[in-house]
Structure formats: structure tokens, C-alpha cells
């Protein structure tokens, strides 16, 4: 199952397509204008998604090759 790879596409869509809908000032979220909040949200989500990808990727399993 290589489906987990497609998770990596989510932030790309969230940022590149999402910006059409997120390009606005209001409402303020966490003290930031909406567009800024939207980008920051996806920065954080990217880390979380890549963590899931890392954990599901079989090439990271097994002993540390260090």
C-alpha cells in the first residue's frame, strides 16, 4: 500500500488551492489576519502529515542504519 504517499499532496492543495478562499483579513484567528493564519496552519499541518508519512513508510522501519 503506497496510499500514504498521497498524504503529501494535502498541504500542496491546502496552500496552492486554499489560498483562493483564504485571501481575506477577517475573521482574525489567534490574533492573526485570516490569510496569515491559514498559511501558518498549513505549516504546522505539513509537519504533522510528514510525521505520519514517516511512520507509515516501510523504508523507515527496521534498525537504524547508522
Amino acid at each position, binding site marked *: 500500500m503506497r496510499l500514504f*504517499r498521497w498524504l*503529501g499532496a494535502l*498541504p*500542496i492543495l491546502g*496552500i*496552492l488551492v486554499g*489560498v*483562493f478562499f483564504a*485571501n*481575506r*483579513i477577517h475573521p*482574525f484567528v*489567534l*490574533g*492573526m*489576519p485570516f*490569510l*496569515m493564519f491559514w*498559511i*501558518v496552519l*498549513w*505549516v*504546522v499541518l*505539513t*509537519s504533522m502529515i*510528514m*510525521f505520519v*508519512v*514517516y511512520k507509515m*513508510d516501510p*523504508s*523507515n522501519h527496521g534498525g*537504524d*542504519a*547508522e
Partner: protein
Amino acid sequence: MNVALIVIFAFLLISIYLGIRAKKGKTMNFEQWTTGGRSFGTVFVFLLSVGEIYTTFTFLGASGWAYGKGAPALYILAYGCIAFIISYWLLPPIWRYAKENRLVSQSDYFVYKYNSPALGILVSIVGIVAMIPYFVLQLKGLGIIVSQASYGSISPNLAIWIGAISITVFVMISGVHGSAWTSVLKDIIILVVVVFLGLYLPIHYYGSFTQMFHAIDAAHPELLTLPDKGMSVYWFISTILLTSLGFYTWPHGFTAIYTAKNERVFRRNAVVFPLYQLVLLFVFFVGFAAILQVPGLQGATEDLALLKISKLAFPPWFVGVIGAAGLLAALVPGSLLLMATATLISKNLYKVFRPRATDGQIAKLATYLVPIIALVSLYFTSNGGQTIVALLLMGYSFVIQFFPSLFFSLFRHNPVTWAGAFYGILVGEIVVVYMTVTNTSIGSMMPFLPQAVKDLNPGIVALIVNIVVMFIVSLLTRNVRVSRHGTASVT
């Protein structure tokens, strides 16, 4: 001698010490010098790659963009995310191939993959032409930061000389080991300084982030969203795409990939990197805070927003710490740039014409080239003028042209031939030069197009031309080979 100056010099001395000490216990040969013997773990590879993001541009440019242009600056935060997602799958195969074939430069990669020294020469020349202005930009930034932070007691020129000499010394002695060790100090101090500034300034001047953005919303609402024309949503998307693809095609960033000791290092970094990028958010906060506090900066002086507001808010010793952070921000990427340029000249240009030169001679030549390249860059820094600005604008578009042939080289059956790669890159570069020199935009070439297309980053045009030429030439040269071998109907 003021307090700020003493602080800056103390940090400079520590970083030179770390840079020289890094050599300890290593027998320096060419592979050690450029790739650290492919022995670096997650932390060092991380810091070297971050060195690419947190340059003097972080200090001056990113805060200046937030100050002068507002929301469009967010592209810097967004493109990193996408670059790191791509890196998870892009970097391991590159690293593996480099290790198997003991590659030391980016051009080596193209020479081996496409079995073509000619392609290597083209990639080297383009790389050098892109990197020297980038190094000059780092030196210029260093000069501005240090002279501002020392309250003018050091002239920008003197600061640039001191910076360039420091980089040259530790690069000649320790190679990439020096860059790695210096980057430890650099990242700690940048992290602390930037996060502190980003939290303190908005709260000190406005009470809270919300209040700061409400104040900006009242005075300059246009700075908080992307405009309808110009730096519009379409500009934003195309710029993010271009810059994220170009992130790993800089020759010095490419060589940093080789330093890893295994491929898992990259996958780990892809998880941590995006979060670490949030440091940039605090840089933006500083720029936004400066909008209403130090109004009136325009054009090139926008880049001084961070330093101006800091001098307004802090005592000299802390301004010195900020100056030291800016100095270090130039040292690490500067050292990688110098090393990559020297390697390209000796290994991928000199060696091609003098194939009998031994590895030892190539290594020695690369070391001696370091001060020479530094001197040439110093000359451009004080005498470059407009040319250097134009080159700089082209630099990013230059290296992005490597991406298509890099991407297809990862396929088991690469549809691109060496000639396709060569002419694709060459024509792509010519388009970049033409568009920059004549100041052509998509709108001026094709005024009938809708606004959305006109706002696209002009670099996209060169990339598309590159890809088209690459495939046409590949198709033609493939057929030639097929007919020569007399095999019919091969795809």
C-alpha cells in the same frame, strides 16, 4: 569601541574558532573537504540546509517584505513547506546515487547521470554565474547589518572585508566541517534573537498581536491580503511553485545533500523542517510591527525595517547581539557558496580540460581558488552596481532550469537524452537573460491575456520553454540512436 562592536567581534571570534577547530581529527582530502566524508547526521544536515533559509535575507529581506509589501511575504513561509515535502522523495535517490559514484559537486551528478562532460560544463558555468552574485548579496547584507548595528563605527566596506576574510580562513582549513560547526552557533543565536524580537516588539508597541494587526488593518488594510493585481493569488501560487522546485537546485545546497551519512536523515528533516520554518513568522511580526513605528522607509531602505525598530527599542549591547546574528547568517551560506564555486571550477571545468590532473591536485586547486573567488566577489561587492542586481534577479531563475532534467534523471527509464537536457537548460537560460535584460513580463509580451496569466511569475515562461525544448530534442536524438542500431519501433 562601543559595546555593540565588542559583542559582534566576540561572536565572530567564537565562530572562527569553531570553524577552525572543526578540522580536528580529520585527514583532509577532497571528499572530506566538500562532503564531510558523507558522515553527517540529522542535526548537521539539518543545520546546513537551514543555513540556506536563514541567510541575511531572513533578517533584512523577509522583514523588509512584510514591512513594505505585507501579505505577499507569506510566500516565503509557504514555499518551504512544499520544498520539504518534495525533499522527502527527491533527496534520498540523489544521495544514494552520489554515494555510489562518489560525487562531490552538483555538476558531477549531471555528468554521471547523462554521461556527458559537456552537460557538466554548462551546469557548472550556470551554477557559478548564479552563485557569485548570491555570495555578493550575502556580503552586502553583512556590511549593512554590521555597520548599522555598530552605530556606524565600522563602515560597511570594512565589515565586508572582515566577513570575507573570516569565511575564507575557515573554509580553506576545515571545508564543510567548518560550515557545519559554525552553523550550530548561528542557529542558536538566530533562533533566540528572532523569536524574542517577534514576541517583544508587537507586545511592547501595541499590547498584543491582535491589537497590532487591528492597528494595521485600520491604517493599511491592503497590507494584510494579496492584492487583485500584481502580487495577486496567481503570482503567489506560481512563485511558490517556482521557488520550491528551485530550492534544491542551487549547487551549494545540492552538495549539502551529499554530506548526509544515510538517507533517513532527509526523511526525518522533512518532518521537523516545516515547524522550524515558523521562526520566519517572527521575522514577519517584526516587519509588521515596524509599519506604524518607523514609517516612511521606501525602496531599498525597506530592508532596514528590522534594524531601525531594534535600535529604537533596545540598548546597544542587544543591538550588538542582533548584529552578530546577522553576521553569522552570512557566514554559513557564504562558506557553502565559496566551497561549491571552488569545487565546480577545479573539478568540473579545470579537470575536464586537464584529465590527467590527480585528485590531490584538484583538491589543492580548489583550496587556493577560495581566496581568489572571495577577492573577485569583494570586487563586485564594491564595483558591481546594476549588473550585480540584474544577475541576482536572474540567479534563482537560472538554477531552476536544472529541475526538469534532474527530475527525469530519477526515472528508471529516463526519457530525456543528454542533448535534450543540454539544450533545454541552455534555451531556458537564454529566455531568462532575455526577459530580465529587456524587462519583459508576460503582460508586455502578450497583452491580450487575462490578468491572472499576466500575474504569473515570469520564471514560469523560461521553465516551460526549457521543458518543451528538452522533450523535442530528446525525441530527435533518441530517434537518431534508434535508427543507427537498426531497432524498429522503440517507443
